[in-house]
């Protein structure tokens, strides 16, 4: 036979159970729509992200032919000038470059990887411009593992060749600097031959508008900027975007 205590607990459960039931119902009535709305929003965000990734990949693809034609033209010039040894060397470098390029399908890469890629490119250009071209790359060691959108520096360097070095005579000096200032990365590409392009970024060749869009997509909640300035002593393009380590970025992406 059950004791008074057990009986009291039984009665307590019997009396409280419907209260819990009623609370459950009330909770559902009040919050079901909100929960639905949240689920809908999460779905929409996921879809939007998918769309952004698709758009981003499309933009990535867009830049590739631009670069590819320029490089082919460089190699073609070497062939025309009959500089066979340099031609072989450039094709070899191009092959390495293409290999790297086709392995890069990610939405972001590290600055280190991007700079390796730039080195291949500059090596090709060096064979073409010989002593005329002098370049210098300086990076802050802290930023090596930070993320950058693929082909950002590449686009700026390519523009320097396309709009300055190939159009004008004289020494071609190029400086690439990647530094960390507070929580932002500043990528500066300077060349000594100012071009007369409209400083409006969208018109500064195919690349700059593309970079702005891609930075916006990768860092939607942070401040990013791309600035082009022409002065007497050359053309400077500065791209600023947040400092994020690659591993952290990947964790963030997978948690979404």
């Amino acid at each position: 036979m059950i004791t008074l205590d057990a009986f009291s607990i039984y009665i307590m459960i019997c009396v409280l159970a419907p209260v819990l039931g009623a609370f459950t119902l009330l909770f559902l009535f009040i919050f079901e729509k909100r929960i639905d709305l949240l689920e809908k929003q999460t779905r929409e965000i996921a879809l939007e992200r998918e769309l952004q990734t698709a758009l981003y990949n499309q933009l990535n693809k867009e830049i590739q032919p631009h670069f590819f034609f320029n490089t082919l033209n460089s190699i073609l010039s070497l062939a025309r000038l009959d500089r066979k040894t340099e031609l072989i060397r450039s094709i070899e470098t191009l092959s390495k470059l293409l290999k790297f390029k086709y392995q890069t399908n990610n939405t972001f890469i590290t600055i280190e990887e991007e700079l390796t890629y730039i080195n291949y490119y500059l090596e090709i250009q060096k064979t073409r411009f010989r002593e005329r071209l002098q370049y210098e790359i300086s990076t802050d060691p802290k930023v090596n593992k930070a993320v950058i959108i693929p082909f950002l520096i590449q686009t700026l360097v390519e523009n320097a060749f396309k709009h300055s070095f190939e159009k004008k005579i004289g020494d071609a000096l190029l400086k690439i600097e990647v530094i960390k200032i507070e929580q932002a990365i500043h990528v500066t590409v300077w060349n000594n031959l100012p071009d007369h392009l409209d400083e409006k970024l969208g018109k500064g060749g195919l690349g700059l508008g593309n970079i702005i869009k891609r930075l916006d997509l990768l860092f939607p909640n942070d401040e990013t900027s791309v600035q082009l300035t022409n002065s007497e002593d050359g053309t400077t393009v500065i791209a600023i975007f947040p400092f994020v380590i690659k591993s952290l970025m990947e964790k963030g992406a997978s948690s979404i």
Partner: protein
Amino acid sequence: MKRKDYQIYISGTIKLGVGFGIISLLARWVTGNTILSSPETLIKYGLTGGIGYSLMGAFALILFGFLAKKIHKKYPGHHTIGDVLRQKLTPTGYWYMISVLLLTSIDSLLLQAMGAHILLHMIFPLPIFTGMLIFLLICFFIGGVGGMQRLHQLAGANVALIFGAVIIIPVYFYIQEGVYPVYEGIKLYHPYLLYINNTDAFLFIVTVILIGFGQVMIDRATWQRVFIIQKEKAQMAFTLAGLVWATIPLALSSLLMIIIFGRSYDTIYSLFFELVDKIQSTMLIILFVLFCFSAISSAISSELHATTTLIVKNIIEVFRTLTNKEKWNCTYIVSGMICIFLLTIVSFLEPNLLGLLFFFGNIYASLIVPLLYIILSKKVLPSIIPLASFIGAAGGYVSLPMLENLMAIWVSFAISSFICLVYFIYQSFFIELIPLKDHTGNFLGTKQNAP
């Protein structure tokens, strides 16, 4: 007056979310049975029986929740259990199952009507015939004529009344009386209630869970609700409805103790309504009476609606196509006739509720596995599957002189399960399925080719 599309009568106009799904299921499943049988189980099997009765509803609805998900996935575009049976069974099997559905519908409606009969008899000085006439007329207008939309409009109020009563009345009494006098009174007058090491009660619990699951599985109204609750929310709605439902018999059993703690009793069925004499406050009396009527009327209305839909959509329409107007006319006639039938029977018969539940228990138990087979299989099934339930139920009734009631129910369950299992093995090993394709090579289905 322009009549609405008949589809609205069957399913209403909106798909339900979890909250409204639970309300709709509670309005269907908090019935006269809940009010009358839960005290009976408490008296017969003690506190364990009371808990067992709660578990029955919870498990039945939760288990059916798993099936609801599958049903939604496998049978999109259907609206009633009849639609699914028609797709999955041969004509013989279909008509057999429809007969069983009608029989169980009548059983279920009769149980509710008897509950209403007892309630009216206890509370109102009106002649019972007049009282029942008015009560059934209300149900006719809600379920028979109003359709799913009207049921949903009233479901919220019904459930609010149910919870209002089961929360306020026990709290009121236990504050007034205290637990100790109730315990002492029960110890004196009904000490058997306080024994929990009751092996009979455990068998009872397992058996009522089986019956409960069978009852939910064959319930036309529940099937209709499966199709009107949003697909992704069906399982959640059933699970929560099961848990919330279980709280109501618990509260009712605590109320019953208040009634019986100081005295003995004559009949179990009228016991609950004697609470009216115990309640001093007029407001609580009104709340209690409204709760009883609300529970019984919402259950009868839902059943009436589902049975009428079954007869019009899955019986009459099988023989001839009906226009929208004809469907509505048929609905009025059929639901009216059911109400008249109930009125006649209730006016002449004496009720024995748990007895009826157990009498049909054999049928419910024997239907479980065949229905599971029908729901889960991929192809049209031969008549032996539905007929297995008949053989099972018959086997159970035959074994009644040798075995007790509860064991006979397990016999029914075992026989029908065995037949289904044998057929399953037979068709898995000996029947080759030939894929049927149309002239363009599209897969149409399979046909059986016995060796």
